[in-house]
């Protein structure tokens, strides 16, 4: 099981949870499992089968774009989903 931190802007899609869990050996598998559990997330995370460019995924504190992308092995490390926030208000 991989623990996934959900940003406030995506919490409506997961029943308000701050953190959820999903299965999988790679980042892709974990996110696909996550989207199966919470179908409303799918369109927020994926664009044409690839990770949406506006969503950052961190595994063990590292951006998966600097690792092996969606093919990165999760290895039990915690995951953080993080879209940009604009607010300085």
């Amino acid at each position, binding site marked *: 099981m991989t623990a996934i*931190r959900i*940003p*406030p*802007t*995506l919490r409506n899609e997961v029943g308000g949870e*701050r953190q959820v869990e999903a299965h999988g050996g790679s980042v892709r598998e974990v996110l696909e499992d996550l989207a199966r559990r919470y179908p409303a997330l799918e369109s*927020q995370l994926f664009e044409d089968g690839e990770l949406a*460019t*506006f*969503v*950052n995924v*961190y595994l063990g*504190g*590292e*951006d998966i*774009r*600097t690792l092996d992308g969606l093919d990165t092995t999760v290895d039990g490390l915690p995951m*953080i989903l*993080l*879209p*940009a*926030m*604009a*607010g*300085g*208000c």
Partner: protein
Amino acid sequence: MATYRELLAQVKGEIDEIGAADARERTESALFLDVREHDEWDEGAVPGAVHVPRGQLESRIEGLVPDKDRELVVYCSGGSRSAFAAKSLGELGYRNVASLTGGFTDWKRNGYPIETPTTLTPSQRARYSRHLLIPEVGEAGQQKLLSSRVLLIGAGGLGSPASLYLAAAGVGTIGIIDADVVDDSNLQRQIIHSTKRLGEPKVQSAKDTIEALNPDVQVKTYEERLTSENVERILADGWDVIVDGADNFPTRYLVNDASVWNDLPVVHGSIYRFEGQVTVFKPGHGPCYRCLFPTPPPPELAPSCAEGGVLGVLPGIIGSLQANEALKLLLGIGDGLQGRLLLFDALATTVDEVIVKRDASCPVCGESPTITEYIDYVEFCAGPRVTS
């Protein structure tokens, strides 16, 4: 019981003393320690000397000079106070200390170089006394802050605490860009404004508050939105650090591009509901905002605080962290948040950190930039995803 003269003679017998000519030869290798009083220091000193009045020597020296093998030349005006100081330094474990016989008076008589330090006024010394006690700041650091210039994007939630703390710290010039007026709904968190300023331009309200807090600070106001058209004019006023507390993505990307092209560090902060993000983008020393967030999210994934709300104290925390990063950049001390994005969750009271790396293919700061001039940022942030 010994008289003063006897005591001085005894102390001088126990320390190393050097003449002005010997001392001059050590100006490259040794640290000169001036133990005179403030008014004597103000009238001139050995260039590069560190000033610690004799009465504060023992309490402050280990903070100022942690290396007890450092070669030190101690001087006062005539060589007596420095003799006692040298003895005391020896007792504190400093192994390489010499007192300048004849002191600064002899140094000057020989025609050796002196400099007149820029000094704080007595009221500044009182105001910034808690800074002056910190070795990492001290008088030189405070002078640096007083001659520093910080530009704040926004006088809202983040800009309020950031500008107040920067002003209190004595940052000499603060620029504030904001086109809005103070509204009822701002006052739950925007602590630089007040009920009696409702309806006033935020930049004027912020200026009034800052000037009441610290008359040392000059506030330059820009009652306008930052745009591709005015950004270069505003940056041409000369800034050391930008503190970004904007409330929209077009401004975030505009600030980023301008900062990369003008080689200006940006202290970034953003907030939503209970969560905040802080980092520092320093051109040439790590990633830029586009390396972190290459694409802005679609509007439904990026609600503003006006739409989604924000806990009133959250900007206080995040804006204060921004002020802290800005002060460290100005002083050149500590480890900044370059390359690290700090994530604060006020509801769980947790602080997490993720690593942010420079992207070699970044369109602005990468190896082959494809964006080299200002674009239409509103259009860029609306993106192709937005359909009617």
